[in-house]
């Protein structure tokens, strides 16, 4: 791997920046691998990286039906935070934040992780009570979170409208200073480059069309559009398509796939210093380093695989944005798109084993999987390598729905998040 550094940049400058090599190979599929990861987004590429780096598996392939990071990795609004209510969630999401904090160094790739702070607005008495409960629960779990008055919230985010004549006035806010954003494409590319340098084969345009199981029921091969690939272990990180992929192995899941929309504005000079979220009126906003306002909307009401949705959904969000930030009322929006998110009944993910030996799944991240990318990848790799869960993902089993151990972040937040 060609290591990135200031010296290397200087050296390449002497030859007109013409000496840079491709960051990963485009190999032909081998007949067999020790492990196969289905899904070439951040979660899947990261799992392959940790399998190779920490568990000594070198003969690994990542199968991606399209191009790297072209699914939800490239479609989310890049918000990173770990201020979830329950102990299990705090453990999993904060594990991810801790990995984010060292990720650029670990991968020798600038993922532009920026801990600019995530502020969640409270608009009702109920919001205030719930968020204060979150603040206390988070601090008991060692996760930073603090309560701000409306004036303190405006001092932290000057464009914010805290007047009391709004339809949903701001009564306060919960601020996680360690939260922030990262460059989503760089996360996929950084993991891909690091995994490739450890010998992982990244196979793009390689769609899985079937999963073969032996007489004992264990997985033995995947059928793909680029041929049959034998493997004793399959990890699935296929987001909205997880039901489809696991259906090939006869596994039914507690998942439904919904379109989630986002949009960006025209680029402007730096005006927005943090991330602001409002679950109550469905608005999620930050400013990218390119200058675009990155805005997240809610899910559409119906299940779909179309990667688009109704225009009334982002319109609803923009109405909320205009109320919260009157300065943005004359901004133009440049692009609007959708991603397909796999939602569980308790809005918590499933990371672990399946009833099929050799088949592991990482799914159900719903509308908030990007923030967990390193943590999900790390614990999935551990689970695949050792055939048992890491203590951090142990509560996030498929069996929790049967056994009644839901991790009900849906009830805790009252929205998908």
């Amino acid at each position, binding site marked *: 791997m060609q290591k990135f550094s200031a010296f290397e940049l200087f050296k390449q400058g002497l030859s007109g920046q013409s000496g840079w090599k491709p960051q990963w190979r485009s190999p032909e599929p081998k007949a067999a691998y020790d492990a196969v990861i289905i899904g070439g987004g951040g979660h899947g590429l990261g799992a392959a990286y940790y399998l190779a780096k920490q568990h000594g598996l070198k003969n690994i392939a990542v199968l991606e039906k399209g191009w790297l990071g072209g699914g939800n990795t490239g479609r989310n609004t890049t918000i990173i935070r770990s201020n979830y209510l329950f102990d299990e969630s705090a453990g999993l999401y904060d594990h991810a934040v801790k990995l984010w904090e060292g990720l650029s160094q670990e991968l020798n790739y600038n993922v532009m992780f920026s801990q600019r702070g995530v502020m969640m607005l409270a608009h009702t008495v109920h919001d205030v009570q719930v968020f204060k409960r979150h603040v206390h629960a988070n601090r008991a779990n060692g996760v930073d979170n603090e309560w701000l008055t409306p004036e303190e919230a405006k001092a932290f985010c000057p464009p914010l409208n805290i007047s009391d004549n709004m339809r949903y006035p701001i009564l306060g806010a919960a601020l996680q200073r360690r939260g922030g954003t990262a460059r989503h494409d760089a996360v996929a590319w950084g993991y891909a480059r690091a995994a490739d340098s450890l010998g992982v084969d990244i196979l793009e345009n390689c769609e899985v069309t079937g999963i073969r199981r032996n007489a004992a029921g264990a997985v033995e091969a995947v059928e793909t559009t680029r041929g049959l690939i034998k493997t004793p272990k399959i990890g699935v990180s296929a987001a909205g*398509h997880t*039901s*489809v992929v696991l259906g090939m192995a006869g596994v*039914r*899941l*507690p*998942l*439904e*796939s919904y379109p989630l929309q986002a949009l960006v504005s025209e680029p402007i000079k730096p005006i927005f210093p943090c991330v602001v979220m409002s679950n109550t009126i469905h608005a999620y906003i930050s400013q990218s380093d390119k200058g675009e306002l990155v805005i997240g909307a809610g899910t559409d*009401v*119906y*299940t*779909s*695989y*179309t990667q688009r949705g*109704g*225009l*009334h959904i982002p319109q609803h969000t923009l109405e909320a944005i205009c109320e919260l930030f009157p300065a943005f009322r004359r901004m133009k929006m440049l692009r609007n798109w959708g991603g397909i998110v796999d939602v569980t*009944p308790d809005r918590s993910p499933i990371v672990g084993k399946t009833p099929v030996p050799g088949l592991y799944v990482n799914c159900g991240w719903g509308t908030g999987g990007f923030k967990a990318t390193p943590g999900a990848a790390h614990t999935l790799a551990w689970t695949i390598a050792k055939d048992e869960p890491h203590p951090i993902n142990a509560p996030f089993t498929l069996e929790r*729905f*049967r*056994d009644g151990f839901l991790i009900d972040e849906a009830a805790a937040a009252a929205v998908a998040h």
Partner: protein
Amino acid sequence: MLLITCPYCGPRPELEFSHGGEAHIARPEKPSELNAEDWTEYLYLRANPKGLHAERWRHIHGCARFFNALRDTTTDQFAATYKTGEARPDLKGAGA
């Protein structure tokens, strides 16, 4: 926005409707005889198909009645809507 044909009121915009999830999931007749696996199947496991999906809608800002629909989740186009209690239409050969 989808245009949805309520079998009672005719075509109306999506905003008048709420989505009710997968259709034809009947409540168990003898709940006390179900084991944990059966309850999981009834409460949580869903087909989530990529293709034709039988689903419930409710015309909540209209007649307020539930009905069922067949919709292709790869195009969001409705193949059929039908009243609650009617069997899922067999669309084989109908070009759907």
